[in-house]
């Protein structure tokens, strides 16, 4: 319950935060909302020696209409993603998925950037932004670069972020009226998904990503490929686990996860096709 001791540094800007992380090296961590990191620290599963608090970098909390995409500041809280009129209009799948993260208290503090940077395959927003073909803007000592969501997730809790890089913005293409569905299957509402599906369909194109079906969020490319080649929803859904490497855990065996993915993808596509 009591984290191991650490030094606390508060950054006023992204530049300052990156400089601080650079100074303190591998043992330092960014702290945004803290709702991924602090629980691990309380159980002493994470013991960073320096925390760089970026929670007060106010200019990183925004949702902006940027023409063909929506730009979301990394420090935008789940609750603000959920309630954003801009997102509800242009990327309703993401706004809806954000309403399923954790519980109300968690959504008041947790941020979309923190969730994505933590790269937890069981989290809702990494997979959802992956399905939507988002691009992540990251900033390091030498400036900004963009990483496509599909290239971002490298392994369990591992991403393409360099240790001294910070996620600053998420660019999500507008959905342009696409049908969509978010399926979160769990035993208790507050928990991570046993399997989750974020999906959209629009005039022959589609995006489907899976939550908790491998060591990273999984883009179900085989499903989209099947759909574009004219397969039925049911047949396409049968390809749901083709790109996944699910693990077994307390709530699901590998076989059950695989089965669930197919069922939930089918249900998602049915809903998205309405």
């Amino acid at each position: 319950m009591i984290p191991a001791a650490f030094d606390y540094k508060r950054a006023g800007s992204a530049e300052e935060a990156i400089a601080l992380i650079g100074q303190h090296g591998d043992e330092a961590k960014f702290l945004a909302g803290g709702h991924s990191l602090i629980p691990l620290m309380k159980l002493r599963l994470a013991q960073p020696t320096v925390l760089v608090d970026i929670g007060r970098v106010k200019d990183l909390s925004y949702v902006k209409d940027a023409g063909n995409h929506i730009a979301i500041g990394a420090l935008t809280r789940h609750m603000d993603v959920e309630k954003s009129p801009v997102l509800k209009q242009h990327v309703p799948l993401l706004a809806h998925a954000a309403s399923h993260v954790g519980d109300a208290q968690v959504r008041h503090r947790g941020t979309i950037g923190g969730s994505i940077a933590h790269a937890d395959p069981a989290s809702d927003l990494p997979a959802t932004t992956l399905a939507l073909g988002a691009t992540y803007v990251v900033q390091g000592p030498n400036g900004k670069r963009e990483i496509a969501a599909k290239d971002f997730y490298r392994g369990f809790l591992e991403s393409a972020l360099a240790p001294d890089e910070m996620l600053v913005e998420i660019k999500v293409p507008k959905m342009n009226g696409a049908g969509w569905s978010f399926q979160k299957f769990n035993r208790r509402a507050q928990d991570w998904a046993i399997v989750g599906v974020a999906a959209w369909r629009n005039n022959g194109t589609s995006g489907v990503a899976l939550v908790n079906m491998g060591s990273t969020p999984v883009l179900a490319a085989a499903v989209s490929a099947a759909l574009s080649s004219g397969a039925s929803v049911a047949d396409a859904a049968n390809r749901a686990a083709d790109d996944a490497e699910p693990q077994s855990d307390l709530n699901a065996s590998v076989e059950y996860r695989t089965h669930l993915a197919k069922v939930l993808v089918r249900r998602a596509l049915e809903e998205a096709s309405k």
Partner: protein
Amino acid sequence: MSITQERTTNVIGQRMLRREDPALLTGEAKFVNDLVIPGALHLAVLRSPYAHARIKSIDVSDAASMPGVVAVYTGKDLHSTWAAPMPCAWPVTPDMKNPAHYPLAVDKACYVGDGVAAVLATSEAASRDALDAIDVVYEPLAAVIDLEDALTDRTIIHESIGTNKSYTWNLKVESAEGAVDKAFKTAAFTVSERYVQQRLIPMAMEPRAVAAVPQPFGGDVTLYSATQVPHILKVMTAITLGIPEHQMRVVAPSVGGGFGSKLDVYAEELLCVALARKHGAPVRWVEERSENTQATIHGRGQIQNIELAADKDGKLTAVRVRLIGDMGAYLQLVTPGVPLLGAFLYGGVYDLPQAYDFSCTSVFTTMTPTDAYRGAGRPEATYAIEVAMDALARTMGIDPYELRKRNYIKKEQFYDAAGNPVGYTAFHGLNYDSGDHLAAAEKAMQHADYTGLRKKQKTQNVPGARKRLGIGMTSYFEMCGLAPSRVLASLNYGAGGWESATVRVLPTSKVQVVTGTSPHGQGHETSWAMIAAEKLGVAPEDVDVLHSDTAIAPLGLDTYGSRSLAVGGVAIAGACDKVIDKARLIAAHQLECAAEDLEFAKGVFSVKGSPDKAVPIAAIAFAAFTAHNLPDGVEPNLEAQYTHDPKNFSWPFGTHICVVEVDTETGKVDVLKYVAVDDCGNQINPLIVEGQVHGGVVQGMAQALYEEAVYDQDGNLKTSNLAEYLVPAACDVPPITTDFTVTPSTTNQLGVKGIGEAGTIGAASAVMNAVIDALSGLGITSLDMPASPNNVWKALQSVQGGKQ
């Protein structure tokens, strides 16, 4: 003794709001960890990461030199501190094996979480930090987590006893030698079922917390603990530490739930007291949740084999039960007795002849010790008989309610030929005080619209249906109100089952009730005040209830086993009677009449036939206080102590019905409706009764659908926190429909029975019967708890070969 009291003030039976609430709702209430104790040192316990390991060496030197650390102790260091091992109060058989168990392990750790060293520091953070610096060298040994494997003695956990078997306890009742075997041979129908009662973690929302405050020069120690049992704890602490009992005081301040898990004597309580005395300073400890899941007892943990024999009409002719009980690594306070509490309930609410054969063998494993968890033995028993009854109904091809109706003990069987309520003497010799099972069941059926549901089920559960409807019922008896002391003696329990009350009318006519019960959410302050107000004819607001401090309420046996009202509440009524008897003598003296000529109603003594000649109890209280003019031989003050030893258990009963929908694609179970019709006799406060049922039902439902303490092969608890152990939240459970029938108990003057465990006793089987009912059309006739989506899906796979 009349069954139902004449209502003099009509306090009893009202939905009175709880007086406990304002303090709890505003943060004013103080739980142990809220107490400000200047100079307190903080205890932290290093726990074994191995399920079974020899402790080769412990190096505490680094930890001892850390900032804020006052001392570090190993089990060896403290061994001479203990006057006796930790207590087990229930040696169920003369040959029961009970290996010595000390607050810190000495040579061997026997479960993950077993304490191996203790740190004292000036802050909680410093005490926790130091744990990481203690260097223990272990020699890991094989874990024993499977009960049947444990029985092979392949790996012996406690070398001192040479076996993993603790005891075998039998209860065989036959009208004639061989009656059980004969019944099975001649039965028209038999079923043989195996059920696994998974381990559960009680998970009271307040983890345990302890603070021991010594008075080194005064010689006394006060132990504050989040306990259900301050009185038992006081005696046991005194014995275990060799402290004269009169120098121990135990206080249970606000306690945040217990469900049996705080009915125990724990290592940390003993460590805090021992170290507080050693250091001459207060010592406190607070449990973290991940620690609670390992260091506080678990519940359930049984493998049940049950066989039913029935005649051609489905009338039960014999029941045979074989249990294996999982004791965990050690015997805690009442660990071995838990299966016995169920032994009397495997005949359910049915008119079973004397053909009953029960045997329980209990084994040690390398897991957290088990002990009483809400219902303790009785939910397990009810589950077995009620799920087996559904199996029997399926075997016979008849409706499960019809089968139960053919077997219920009938209302008239609780009366003798002359119509006197004599109770029903069951096959095992215990007397069920009162009951009307059919009435409760009928009421439940109406609430659920059972007939309508069965019709709907026929149209819904067609081949290929994605969602299948299931209806499950359970009719239960709860043996509670623990307990008649003589019955406990026959079961070898180490204490009695009485409860004490003192009622005191103060000079200004305000009333103090002192009770030996120790509430932790049940609303005793409200209900006990209602009982005294009713009896004495005063306003409930004028009654204060004192409890949970052995200096204020020195006599008591505490709160567990749905005993508080049926034993402790009745004791209060008895003490009130004694107060009234004494007041009557003073009133007669004042009114110059014979005591027999007085009647007492609404707080006033009046001469029969001359209502103007009257004196209120308030005036008598003042007269008793001044003592200026008391009759000869009457002591001053208006106070009486009464100890109630119940002459029987109380036997609440009822029928619960659960309606579920099972998604055959995902295996997910949705509870659509839950109806509970319970009968706990007369109700003191229906508001509180309903609350007890709601909470109990959800705990039972949680066993059926969500909860399980899962261990891996190495004996690691995989569900060690609230993110992994699935206590359901509001959105994971349905609203509960509650209703009641009222069949007063005939064995106590209030006509009351317990209700704290009833919901839990009924719910798990009702839910599982519903789930199996939904799936039986597909060929699934058994399913282990919890009916998680994965488990249900696996069962569906096994009967459909993967084809939906």
